[in-house]
């Protein structure tokens, strides 16, 4: 199959839908489902007029706090009408409004800053297509990047585009994707692997979950292009067992892609073959670390090993292995189709493209957003997020999960990119952004994350196993108001030791929440001490 044939196929799918004038899209991602989207979808299917109106379940529309969300979209390209907090009882009213006046009492304004300030690349299909429909993905140009790469580009061409795009790993590390791919491509080996890291373990992060639930084919397509570029023919998606809906949709997508010849042997009648398997995690945060993740795929305890050798040289079962995160793979198809230079034109000098963030905590609009790199933190929190509810004041925003840190109001005007965040003692991480108001105690937040790292430490190396335990005890004492100055000094000392001597990223970054809260909120620690050591 070549591009013309694929375009023809897409045209046929669109032509079959020519009679549809309106599409009613019901968000069926996990968050809206648990707010009752299922009955809403059933209700709308029953109430909707047949013929020119189609009702379908789609992926995440972003504004999770207002779910279940429903959009009525005219197929002539007009603005969709968005409805919030829809209940099954509202189905009749919405069905009656199609082609007539919208139901104002449920309506979300179209110019809501939450939507108008976003730029969608990764999430462009999310909330628009049915994630369980292979044809739906083809209709929006799906798999054209893969077919283009396989039939018109050499692996070196693909590497060149990805390198030119300036894309950096979206799992948190920010390692240049093009460089990683090139390293694996250069390895002389008969067998190589591509792994998609979907073990989204940071508490407060749900970007990867939403991408897998909303547009699973996009991730598979990215993996296949990567495999072609580096010379691999087997892939694994390592996904958390806590995400059953994402697993189910991914399974469906793999099955359908395979049946249509877009995965498996001789994809699209080329010499390229690629098989993908799903591996389920079993609830271990450390498995987000790449060497631990590979151990887990091999059926072992998820314990990391020292690097080097890096997975690119010696990874899964000792073979060269490319590991990227879900969002990184989801960026690949548009880079191949529109070119690396197009992508490099978005974002800042050293952080290209867009980033998906999961906004949560005490903020008015919680949900999933995608903004260009370099967007001001204040715009994300106050404009898109709508600020802090209940008349309270903003205190801090936490990024990067247990490996990241907290930023105070004084730094709200920084551009959000890898380097600006790192300079302030936190990290981009995978994209969790948790907002806290004045009622949150920063010492308690530090204790919370330390408890997390303590429980999740795999126990292999001593600094992490014993250090996180000691630091947690100290933080607990200080939080209770029983700490002394010596305790605080010991805590700072331990932070340094654990950071410098731990084996893997979990231990090396475990002190970050403590260090960043000490840096920006030191007075809160001091106040807690005052009672005993004044």
């Amino acid at each position: 199959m070549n591009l013309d044939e694929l375009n023809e196929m897409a045209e046929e799918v669109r032509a079959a839908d020519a009679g549809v004038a309106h599409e009613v899209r019901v968000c069926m991602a996990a968050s809206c489902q648990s707010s009752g989207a299922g009955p809403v979808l059933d209700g709308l299917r029953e109430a909707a007029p047949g013929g020119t109106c189609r009702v379908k379940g789609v992926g995440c529309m972003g504004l999770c706090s207002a779910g279940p969300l429903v959009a009525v979209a005219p197929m002539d390209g007009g603005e969709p009408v968005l409805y919030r907090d829809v209940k099954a009882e509202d189905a009749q009213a919405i069905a009656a409004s199609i082609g007539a006046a919208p139901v104002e009492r449920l309506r979300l304004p179209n110019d809501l800053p939450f939507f108008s300030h976003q730029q969608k690349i990764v999430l462009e299909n999310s909330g628009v297509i049915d994630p369980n429909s292979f044809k739906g993905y083809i209709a929006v140009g799906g798999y054209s990047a893969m077919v283009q790469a396989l039939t018109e580009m050499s692996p070196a061409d693909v590497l060149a585009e990805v390198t030119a795009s300036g894309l950096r790993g979206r799992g948190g590390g920010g390692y240049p994707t093009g460089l990683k791919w090139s390293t694996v491509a250069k390895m002389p080996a008969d067998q190589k692997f591509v792994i998609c890291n979907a073990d989204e373990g940071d508490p407060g992060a749900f970007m990867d979950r939403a991408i897998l639930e909303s547009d699973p084919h996009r991730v598979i397509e990215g993996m296949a292009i990567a495999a072609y570029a580096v010379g691999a023919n087997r892939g694994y998606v390592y996904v958390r067992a806590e995400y059953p809906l994402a697993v189910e949709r991914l399974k469906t997508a793999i099955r359908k892609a395979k049946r249509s010849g877009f995965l498996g042997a001789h994809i699209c009648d080329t010499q390229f073959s690629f098989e993908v398997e799903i591996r389920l995690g079993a609830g271990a945060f450390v498995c987000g670390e790449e060497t631990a993740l590979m151990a887990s795929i091999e059926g072992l305890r998820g314990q990391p090993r020292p690097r080097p050798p890096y997975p690119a040289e010696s990874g899964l079962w000792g073979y060269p292995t490319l590991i990227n995160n879900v969002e990184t793979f989801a960026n690949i198809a548009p880079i191949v189709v529109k070119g690396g230079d197009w992508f490099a034109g978005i974002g800042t000098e050293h952080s290209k493209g867009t980033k998906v963030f999961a906004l949560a905590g005490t903020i008015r609009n919680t949900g999933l957003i995608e903004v260009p790199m370099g967007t001001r933190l204040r715009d994300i929190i106050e404009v898109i997020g709508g600020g802090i509810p209940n008349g309270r004041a903003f205190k801090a925003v936490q990024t990067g999960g247990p490996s990241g840190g907290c930023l105070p109001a004084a730094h709200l005007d920084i551009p959000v990119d890898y380097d600006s965040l790192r300079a302030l003692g936190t990290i981009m991480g995978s994209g969790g952004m948790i907002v806290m108001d004045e009622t949150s105690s920063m010492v308690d937040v530090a204790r919370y994350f330390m408890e997390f790292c303590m429980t999740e430490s795999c126990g292999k190396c001593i600094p992490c196993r014993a250090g996180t335990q000691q630091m947690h005890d100290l933080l607990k004492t200080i939080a209770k108001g029983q700490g002394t100055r010596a305790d605080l000094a010991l805590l700072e000392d331990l932070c340094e030791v654990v950071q410098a001597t731990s084996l893997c990223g979990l231990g090396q970054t475990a002190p970050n929440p403590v260090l960043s809260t000490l840096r920006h909120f030191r007075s809160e620690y001091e106040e807690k001490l005052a009672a005993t050591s004044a």
Partner: protein
Amino acid sequence: MSVTRPKPPAPSTDKRWNLVNAAMRRNGYADHALIEALHSVQEAFGYLDETALIYVAESLDLPLSKVFGVATFYHLFMLKPKGRHACVVCTGTACYIKGAGGLIEGIEGRYGIQPGETTDDNALSLLSARCVGACGLAPAVVLNGDMLGKQTSEDLLTRLGGLD
């Protein structure tokens, strides 16, 4: 030279072993599919008991110590049976900020169980999860597989009280 040993017979005539066998067969009885095999046991029986661990070890030709090591390493695997109802309280950051601690305290106060424990009458197990990814609905609880968002301690206790 490797010797292929015959696969052991299922521990009982319980039909659920067929599900476990199917999972192991799908992966060609490869030792790297151990975690998949343990998932299938837990899905079929609700937890991993000693009989199951021995059976999986023999089927995949692995030392029992290794199977036990893997089963105890991962938080999701349960070595004890759960109660009739399972209440998982999410303790992710967003849920924590919005009061997951209060939900756990409420259950501790009413039922006298801590996360990981089951009531004496086997009616309710309390579990905690690292993050179920429903941060927009914080604090979130997964009760018998159904996600409940924006919970208060009163709501949750009322709902638990209404279970049989």
